[in-house]
C-alpha cells in the first residue's frame, strides 16, 4: 500500500508540463527568507539557470544563510559570490564537468585558488574526476597553505597520477602536521614527497600569509 502511495506521489510530482512548475517547487528553499530577499535570490538563480550554471546551489546557499541567521544583505552577497564562482569554475573546468566538480571548483576559487590552476588541472586530467583534487586543494588553502604551494602540489600530484585516496590521505596528514605546529607549507611539501612526488619550491619566508 505504501509503495502505491509513493508511486502516486511520484507521479503527481511528475505532472509538470512546464519547467517553471519544477522551479517553483524548489522555491520553498527560500521560505525562511523575507519576501524581498527571496525575490532577489530567485532572480539571481534564474540568471544562473539561463547561463547554464547550477542554480539549485544558489538557492541552497540562501537557505544556508537563513539557517545561520545571516542578515539579508549578506545572503544576497553570498549568493552572488557563489554564482560568479560557479560560473568561472564551469568555464575553467569545461562545460562537460559534473555539478560536483563545478561545486568543488567554485569552493577552490572562493578559497583563493586561481581559475588558471583549475584549467591546468583539467588539462592534466581531461577524462577523470577532479572532484577530490579540488576539495583537497581548497582544504589546504583554507588551512593557510600558500596558494602557490598548494596549487603546484596538486598539479604535480595530478601529473604523477596520484589517486583520490592518496590525495585524501595527504590532506589528512597535512592537517595533523599543522596541528602539531608544522608550518602549512612545510607540511604540504614533506607529505607530497611522501607520495613520491617532487615537491614544489619552498615559498620565501616573508610570504603574504
Amino acid at each position, binding site marked *: 500500500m505504501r509503495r502505491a502511495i509513493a508511486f502516486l506521489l511520484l507521479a503527481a510530482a511528475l505532472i509538470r508540463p512546464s519547467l517553471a512548475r519544477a522551479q517553483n517547487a524548489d522555491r520553498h528553499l527560500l521560505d525562511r527568507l523575507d519576501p524581498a530577499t527571496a525575490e532577489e535570490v530567485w532572480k*539571481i538563480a534564474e*540568471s*544562473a539557470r539561463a547561463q547554464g550554471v547550477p542554480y539549485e546551489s544558489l538557492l541552497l546557499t540562501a537557505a544556508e544563510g537563513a539557517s545561520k541567521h545571516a542578515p539579508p544583505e549578506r545572503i544576497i*552577497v553570498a549568493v552572488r*559570490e557563489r*554564482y*560568479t564562482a560557479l*560560473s*568561472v569554475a564551469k568555464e575553467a573546468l569545461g562545460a562537460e564537468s559534473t555539478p560536483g566538480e563545478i561545486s568543488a571548483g567554485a569552493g577552490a576559487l572562493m578559497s583563493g585558488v586561481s581559475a588558471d590552476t583549475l584549467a591546468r588541472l583539467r588539462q592534466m586530467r581531461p577524462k577523470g574526476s577532479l572532484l577530490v583534487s579540488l576539495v583537497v586543494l581548497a582544504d589546504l588553502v583554507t588551512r593557510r597553505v600558500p596558494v602557490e604551494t598548494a596549487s603546484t602540489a596538486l598539479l604535480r600530484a595530478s601529473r604523477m597520477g596520484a589517486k583520490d585516496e592518496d590525495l585524501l590521505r595527504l590532506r589528512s596528514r597535512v592537517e595533523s602536521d599543522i596541528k602539531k605546529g608544522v608550518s602549512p607549507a612545510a607540511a604540504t611539501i614533506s607529505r607530497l614527497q611522501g607520495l613520491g612526488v617532487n615537491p614544489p619550491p619552498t615559498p620565501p619566508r616573508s610570504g603574504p600569509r
Partner: protein
Amino acid sequence: MTDAELVARTCAGEVEAFGRLVDRYYDDCTRFARRMLGNRDDAEDALQEAFVHAYRGLPRYQERDAFRGWLYRIVVNECRRLAARRWRSERHMVRDQDVLERVASREENGRELHDELQSSLERLEPMLREAFLLKYGEELDYEEMARMTGASVSALKMRVKRARDRLRPMLEREGEADGAR
C-alpha cells in the same frame, strides 16, 4: 574576483556580475552623494541614474583605469546634473506656493541630513564642496580627483584649500558648542 573581471563578465551578459560591483560600491557612493546633495531622496535618484549609466557604459570602460575611479566620475557627474536641475527648478519655485510647501515638507520629514558637518558643507559652493568631499570624505588623491572631475590638480588643490579654510572655523564653532554640553 577583481573589478575588471566582474566588468568582463558583465559585458559577457552576466548582469549578476554587475550586482557584485553594486555590492562593492553602492554604499560608498551613497555616502558621497548624500553629503554632496544633502538629501537622501536626491542622493538615491542620483545613484540609481549613475549606476544605470555605468552599466550601459561598461563596454567603454578600459582596464587601465581603476574601476572605482571610473564609477565615481559617473557619480560625480550625476550629482552635478541633479543639483543643477534642482537649483533651476527651485529658482522657479519661489513663486509657486504649492511647490514651496512641498519643499518644506520634504525637509520636515527628515530626508534632509542635519548634522554639523552637513550644515557646514551646505555653506560651501558646489565646486568647493565636491572637491572637499572627494579629498577628505572619500580620501582620494589629487590625480584620481582630477580624472574624476576633469579639473586640473592645481585647481583642485586650490578648491580644497579654500573649502578647508572656510570649513575649519565653522566646524570649530560647532565643536565649541558641543564642548559646552
